[in-house]
């Protein structure tokens, strides 16, 4: 983990309530896709944890949804403004488990970390399929980016207004895969856990105090013991998760 001051290069709306912010700064603490950063937003006490969507050299790309005052304030910031950010938080996805043809399954604002993951896997010569689920057409983002990165990209929308109609679990049976990586809402996870045919990794969300393991605010029980989602997580193995119903 590192604390750094980042400069905003761009901060623009890319879908309904969805923003992409590109930052310049010291990204050396970011070691794996699936990690997150924690951002101080002036006027708000707690930092805002946001997963890494892309990271190249000193360029850090994040995608966030405006869900309250903090993210709305963040969305109002302009190029050139500075942000205090803790980087390199969480464990991230384990690329060594992917096999030759991993599948990436994202839901809504859970899609961004999978983009960085897709790029890394493809750079290792893997054949990557990405199933990206959204509620409706105007919430869809990053389809072209995934395609340009070389992922076999499938968009599904719950209302069928764009791509295939239905949920990610409706599209999943059409594909063979060696391993899965997913990020999205827990209802999607629960459906997925019954539909997947291989082991995989899930990236979880929880309200966090610190984001670096100090406050125990985001603990969860797993088959391999208590874990802090911000520290031993957010990525968990399919085999260790205890599903609440």
């Amino acid at each position, binding site marked *: 983990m590192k604390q750094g001051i980042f400069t905003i290069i761009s901060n623009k709306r890319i879908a309904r309530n969805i923003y992409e912010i590109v930052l310049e700064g010291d990204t050396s603490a970011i070691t794996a896709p699936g990690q997150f950063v924690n951002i101080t937003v002036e006027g708000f*006490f*707690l930092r805002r944890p946001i997963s890494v969507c892309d990271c190249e050299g000193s360029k850090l790309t994040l995608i966030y949804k405006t869900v309250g005052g903090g993210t709305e304030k963040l969305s109002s910031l302009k190029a050139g403004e500075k942000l205090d950010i803790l980087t390199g938080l969480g464990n991230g996805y384990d690329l060594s488990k992917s096999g030759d043809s991993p599948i990436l399954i994202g839901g809504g604002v859970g899609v961004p970390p999978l983009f960085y993951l897709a790029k890394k896997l493809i750079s290792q010569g893997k054949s990557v399929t990405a199933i990206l689920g959204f509620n409706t057409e105007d919430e869809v983002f990053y389809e072209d980016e995934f395609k340009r990165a070389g992922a076999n990209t499938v968009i599904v929308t719950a209302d069928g207004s764009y791509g295939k109609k239905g949920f990610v679990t409706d599209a999943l049976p059409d594909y063979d895969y060696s391993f899965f990586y997913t990020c999205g809402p827990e209802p999607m996870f629960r459906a997925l856990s019954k539909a997947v045919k291989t082991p995989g990794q899930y990236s979880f969300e929880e309200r966090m*105090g*610190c984001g670096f393991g100090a406050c125990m605010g985001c*603990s969860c029980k797993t088959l391999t013991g208590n874990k802090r989602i911000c520290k031993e997580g957010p990525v968990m193995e399919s085999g260790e998760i205890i599903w609440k119903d």
Partner: protein
Amino acid sequence: MERLKVNLCGIGIDNPVIPASGTFGFGYEFAQLYDINILGTFSFKGTTKDPRFGNHTPRIAECTAGMINAVGLQNPGVDSVIKDELPKLKEVFHKPVMANISGFSVDDYAYTCEKLDKQEQVGWLEVNISCPNVHGGGMSFGTDPASAAEVTRAVKAVTSKPVIIKLSPNVTDIAAIAKACEEAGADGISLINTLLGMRIDLKTKRPVIANKMGGFSGPAIFPVALRMVYQAANAVKIPVIGMGGISSAEDVIEMMLAGATAVQVGAANLVDPFACKKIIGDLPRVMDKYSIKNLKDIIGGALNG
């Protein structure tokens, strides 16, 4: 640096800045960020007789200038703390550490304190009496002078190191609780623990945290903390550790003027992991600004008379 030194219950510390229990774990996360030996000491994660997972999540809610937590004393239990955590801590922290103890009965407190008292790394025992008394209708030990005194006596009877009682602010008369602890033999008191607070989610129309209410901390509570430290310091002769929303060197000085011999920094560590390092670094400059030669000289400077 000589001018920052204070004496806490017979143990000299290099400066009065002490990360508060529950915001600093057992120190490792922070030891990766800076040399935690620059601290006066730190109070480690609240330890209980048996391991605890704590409350359901969400455990955290945000507030204006603060936060609410309802972690529920998650900890591995005293035996694991002694067997696993203290040896790991020894590698990164070479000063006496403050052990923080919680319990749900008088015997719990005595049992856990007795074990930790025997650890040579432990310099002080900080006893958190804000927990519900399962044999006392669930009211917190810290809300009743008699219960507070009972815990103090039970712990003092089985320990040799300085015992600091950590008081709950959710009381009508903090001075009465402080006096009861002093009369029962406490070597010091620390306050304030968190204020009981709550937030409701307008979307779900339900409390934000699973436990409904939780402990409110952060800069928002500083004026209440300062007032209670002032009242407690006026009521007792034993050292007082002041805490509650401290996030700057200025706050440290204000709290010491109110009667604190040392201070604890809590929520600030969670939003800025370098908070204590920065505060210690800022102290000499801020002391110069307000013509303060030695910190130990300003303790209680604003008290009556």
